[in-house]
Structures are given as structure tokens and as C-alpha cells.
């Protein structure tokens, strides 16, 4: 498709500050792992991080590390290391890349942050299977390897409504974690500290929501590709003042852009919804492709998954349970379709792209007829691209490009 070769989306000035707080976070984790008086917990990205922080743990998120492995092009070479010990190429490529990195003794942290050699050694591993079963398998492997305890929440799945019965269940599971965590932490849970942490998480996710919703403006000042980078603090620093301060700064930059109609993509002609995981190693390439095609991928389920309106400092544990159950990925297709329809309307979307990630079935919502149902109901066309979050062996760049270009041609014909 003949287009101007202008392929750079607008830069976000706050990125420098984000890099700084992420850097501080990784160095702090490293210091905690080396110290004798601080404890480290590993946590799944939508696990009970608030509880861990309130107990004084430094919290590492292996999913964040795995995404870094993908983004830095290390993953594809490391995944086979895990394959050879019995972890199939068909399962989560976060898991296989991360375990592969451990087996090889390498980490992107070592390249990015001088002085850090590897992820911090954990004192305890805490999962929540609200995302998938793979996180439990992943943490269990490390628990055996490193001889540390592994505890977690086995989440209900595929429900339409977050009912009291489900909230009761997860609340009890969170409460049951506390004695083991206290034992490792060597301290009792301070409920006031937990309330403060939950309040910070609530504030962080509220600001993150406002950041993402700036993209409802036309043109959108922010894209999905920006979102995948700037969601870092919402994932790893949720429950801290640093994350709250950062999103205030980012929002302060985006609001004037919105008012001044400065789009992230020049001459935005098409507004796209991205459903599914990013292809970490192709973020720049995909961003450039869409920018070239004057199309803004401006909203996604993925980035919006770190918005938890249910956190409530007055009822911290039960509200954590409610928040973790409210997560998109753990819900039924009926709920997911209502959610996406709302987003399509709010963000004035012209087309949806579903990324069918080979090794991430839970984040690939194109396998049970959803694209066809949504297209029939909304009239908004959709495209499914095959790929993966981390395993580049599952990706055909040329086929992806042709599919995306053809989809934009299709939208053009329909204008």
C-alpha cells in the first residue's frame, strides 16, 4: 500500500521518568535479595501484590521479566532450553523463556542495569491462577529448584458475574495465605499498612485508566504500543507512591495533547482495537507499520487489564478478591463480549485485530467464535493474526504485514 514513509509515532516525554522509577525498582529488588533483613516474594502480575507489599516483601514479577526477555530478543533462543526438560513449545512462552533464561544463567536485567546479574532470589513464590494454570506450573518449578515455599490462589474461571460466592471463596484463599507469608516475612500483617497499600493500588489503577482513556479522543494521543511500555509501573509498582506519582505526570502530559488534538499517529484515519497479547519483539515494527498506514491502534484489552476499580481501602482483603476476579481474562465470553462492545463504542473503533498467540490460549479470544459474533452484532470488521508473545518461531512477519495491510485496505473501502 503506497503511503508516506513517516513511521514514527509521537514520543512521550515522561518515558525518561518511567525508566528511572523502573530502574530504581530493579535496583531495590536486587538490594533486597542481597540483604539479610529484607525478604523477596515472587508474584504473578495479578496476584496478591498488595498483601506482599504490606508485609514488607520486595516483589518481583516473573511475567515482567519474561516480557523483557521477549522484547530484548532473548526469548526465542532460551525457550528450547525449557523444551528440552519437558516444557512443551506449545505452552506459555513466558514460562519457557523465563525458565530457559534461568537454566542458561542469563537475564535482560544484567544488560540493562549494570551490577544486577539475575532476578532476585525469592524467599517465597505466590501465584494466582486467575490468568492461567501455567503460572502455577511455572512457580512450582522454581519452588522445587530453589527449595522455597510456593503458595497461591486457585481462581474460579469463566463466570459471567463476580458473585458473593466467588468473592467469599477468593477472600478465604487470600486470608489462608497470611500465616505462611507472616512466617517467611517474620512479621505480623499490619492491617493499616494493607489499607494504605490497597488505597495506593486503587489510585494507581484509577490514574492508569484515565491515561488509557485519553485515547478516546480523536486523534488519540496514545497508542497500544505506548501502553505496553508505560503499563510497567502499574504492573510492578502497584501499591506504591512512585506509580501514583508517575501516572499523574503522564496524565499531565497527555491531557494537553488531547486538548490540542495532537495525535500519536499523524493523520489518523483508522482507529483499531487490539485484542490479545503484544508481540514483544515486534512492538516497534508493528507500531511503524500502523503509523505508515495512518492507523492508530489506540486501545487494547491487555493494557486495560491493570485497571481495578474494585480496590477499597475500607475492606482491603475482600476488595482484593473482587478486583482479581474482575479481571477480563478470567471471565466468560459473554462478559468479555459486553466489555469489548463497550470499549468499541467508547473509543470509536473502526476495526478489531485479534492476536491469536500460539502459546497463550487464555489471552487469545479468537478461538471460540467471538470475532464472528462481535462482527455480526456491531458491524465492525475484524482480523485475526497468528503469532506469539515471545516465541518468534510462531511468527511470519510477511504474512502479518500482508494481513494488516489488506485489513486497512478493507477499512479504506468501507469509509
Amino acid at each position, binding site marked *: 500500500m*503506497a503511503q508516506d514513509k513517516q513511521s514514527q509515532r509521537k514520543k512521550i516525554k515522561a518515558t525518561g521518568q518511567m525508566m528511572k522509577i523502573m530502574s530504581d525498582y530493579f535496583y531495590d529488588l536486587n538490594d533486597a535479595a542481597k540483604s539479610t533483613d529484607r525478604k523477596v516474594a515472587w508474584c504473578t502480575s495479578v496476584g496478591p501484590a498488595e498483601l506482599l507489599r504490606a508485609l514488607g516483601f520486595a516483589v518481583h514479577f516473573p511475567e515482567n521479566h519474561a516480557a523483557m526477555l521477549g522484547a530484548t530478543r532473548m526469548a526465542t533462543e532460551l525457550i528450547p532450553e525449557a523444551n528440552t526438560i519437558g516444557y512443551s513449545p506449545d505452552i506459555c512462552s513466558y514460562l519457557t523463556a523465563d525458565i530457559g533464561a534461568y537454566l542458561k544463567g542469563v537475564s535482560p536485567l544484567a544488560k540493562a542495569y549494570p551490577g544486577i546479574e539475575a532476578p532476585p532470589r525469592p524467599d517465597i513464590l505466590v501465584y494466582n491462577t486467575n490468568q492461567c494454570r501455567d503460572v502455577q506450573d511455572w512457580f512450582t518449578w522454581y519452588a522445587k529448584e530453589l527449595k522455597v515455599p510456593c503458595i497461591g490462589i486457585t481462581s474460579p474461571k469463566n463466570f459471567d458475574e463476580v458473585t458473593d460466592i466467588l468473592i467469599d471463596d477468593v477472600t478465604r484463599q487470600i486470608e489462608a495465605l497470611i500465616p505462611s507469608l507472616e512466617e517467611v516475612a517474620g512479621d505480623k500483617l499490619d492491617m493499616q499498612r494493607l489499607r494504605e497499600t490497597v488505597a495506593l493500588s486503587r489510585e494507581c489503577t484509577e490514574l492508569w485508566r484515565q491515561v488509557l482513556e485519553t485515547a478516546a479522543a480523536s486523534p488519540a494521543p496514545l497508542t497500544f504500543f505506548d501502553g505496553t511500555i508505560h503499563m510497567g509501573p502499574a504492573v510492578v509498582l502497584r501499591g506504591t507512591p512512585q506509580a501514583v506519582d508517575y501516572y499523574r505526570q503522564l496524565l499531565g502530559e497527555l491531557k494537553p495533547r488531547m486538548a490540542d488534538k495532537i495525535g500519536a499517529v499523524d493523520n489518523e484515519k483508522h482507529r483499531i482495537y487490539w485484542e490479545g497479547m503484544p508481540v514483544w519483539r515486534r512492538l516497534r515494527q508493528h507500531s511503524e507499520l500502523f503509523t505508515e498506514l495512518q492507523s492508530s491502534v489506540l486501545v487494547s484489552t491487555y493494557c486495560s487489564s491493570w485497571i481495578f476499580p474494585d480496590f477499597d481501602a475500607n475492606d482491603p482483603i475482600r476488595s482484593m478478591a473482587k478486583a482479581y476476579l474482575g479481571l477480563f481474562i478470567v471471565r466468560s465470553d459473554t462478559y468479555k463480549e459486553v466489555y469489548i462492545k463497550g470499549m468499541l463504542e467508547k473509543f470509536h473503533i473502526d476495526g478489531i485485530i485479534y492476536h491469536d498467540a500460539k502459546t497463550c490460549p487464555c489471552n487469545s479470544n479468537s478461538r471460540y467464535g467471538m470475532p464472528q459474533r462481535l462482527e455480526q452484532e456491531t458491524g465492525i470488521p475484524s482480523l*485475526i493474526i497468528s503469532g506469539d508473545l515471545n516465541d518468534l518461531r510462531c511468527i*511470519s512477519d510477511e*504474512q502479518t504485514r500482508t494481513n494488516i495491510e*489488506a*485489513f486497512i*485496505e*478493507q477499512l479504506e473501502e468501507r469509509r
Partner: protein
Amino acid sequence: MAKQVYVGLDMGASRTKVAVIDRHGAMIGYAAKKSGVDFAATAADCLDTALELAGVNQETIVDAVATGYGRNNVAFITEKSKTEIGCHARGCHYCFPEAITILDIGGQDNKIIKLDAEGRRDSFKMNRKCAAGTGAFLEEMSSRLDIPLNEMNNLARQATETIKLGSYCTVFSATEVLENIRHGKPVADIIKGIFYSMIQRVLEMDSLTEKVVLSGGVVAHNPYLVEMTAKLIGRPVLLPEFPQFTGAHGAALYAMDAAAEKAANKKEE
């Protein structure tokens, strides 16, 4: 008025096709050749042959559009490009101007494209990262059986039964073929099974609307596949006069649009 022509170059992963059309959109010259490793040289060669067949020279080309995997490798001829999905749609709709579903079976990929009566795309799907249902599958089977591609069509017609090959995977399908050979099944039945498997993999990709058009080089060289498709879907299928050139023809039609737009803009100035 000197003769004016428009050119479409379809730089496929397997074959390069060039179409030359007149100002009414009718194809007056064409050429196809293996793409090989030098896309630019192959394109230049095909262009010369197609222009010669059309009885014109390079000076008569008003505009050109490229498509296919190598569409960005022919900047010396044109920098304008469209996807092969768009071009196959355009070329087929030129031949059958109504609401249609196109099944395009190419050397490396296949597509199902649905068009409304005006030729606008309702949807499209390409095969996954796999050779199932593509010309590459047929080539692999031809090589395994040591039977030339051009003999497979006639052999399939002699079959009395259809051997079913169940796998998505070309390598596994080859194993199934070898297993059938070991069990003494007639080669003709196996080849019919190969064609059957191929078209089945394509039909599994999407639902079909009433009118179905087949296009692509594999169809052009294997008319048996057309008959088999009609039988499988239970109604006749439509076939363009030059099924291998629908993409190139579509690209040439887009070139004609581009020239018309340019002329209109000039007039406005």
C-alpha cells in the same frame, strides 16, 4: 490516440505473473515465470513478454501497480503497491461483478475473500503458518511420490476411491501417503486423496456464500481440483478465464484507477 496500457505485477512467492490491460480493463497481455531468487529480473522478463504479447512497448504504460510477497522489490517499475488480497478481489470481481466468495489457492498461501455486489471486501482469511491446502503441499507430495506435477491431474481422474489424508501437517500427510503405498493402495487413489485433502483444508478456513470463484495458479494447472471443489460444496464454481492472473489483473485495474485519479487531480488544478 496512441494505445495506452496499464500493468499489474503479481510477485508471488512461487511464481511471478504480469498482466497488461487496455483502457477498458481487458487483459491483452500476460506472462508468468518462477519467481526464483532475483525478483526484479524475473519481473522485468515477464513484463517484456507480456508487453510483446499485447503488441505494445514500455512507452505505452500509463501506470503500474505491484502486488504479492515481492511487491516492494520492483521499485524500478513501480512504487505503487496493493496487497494480493485486494488485487485478487479486484481481478475476480472484474470477471464476476456480483457478491462472491473467492477461494484463491497459491503456491505458498491460500485465501478466502468475501465480496459484496460492489466488490468491496466483507472479510478475508489467509491460511495459518502451514503449507496445508497450498501449492507447496502439492509440490511436496509430487516430490515424495516421484510423480511430476503435470501428471497428477490426469492420474487423479483415474481413481476409483478417495484415500483420506487427515493431517494438517504436510510432513504427517507424507507419512500417511507412504503408509498407503505400503498397504498397496493404487497411486491414482492416493493422488485423488491428496487433492481432496488440499481442498478440504481450504474449505475448513471459512464459510462460503452462494457464488464461489476459484483462482490461483494451482487451480489453473489442475482443473480436476475445480471439479472436486464443485462436488464437495454441492454447486458449480466460477472460474475466471485466466485464474493464475487474477491478482496481476486486479493490480493492473488499480493502476488504471491511479491514472484516472491523477488525471482528475490535474484537471482540478
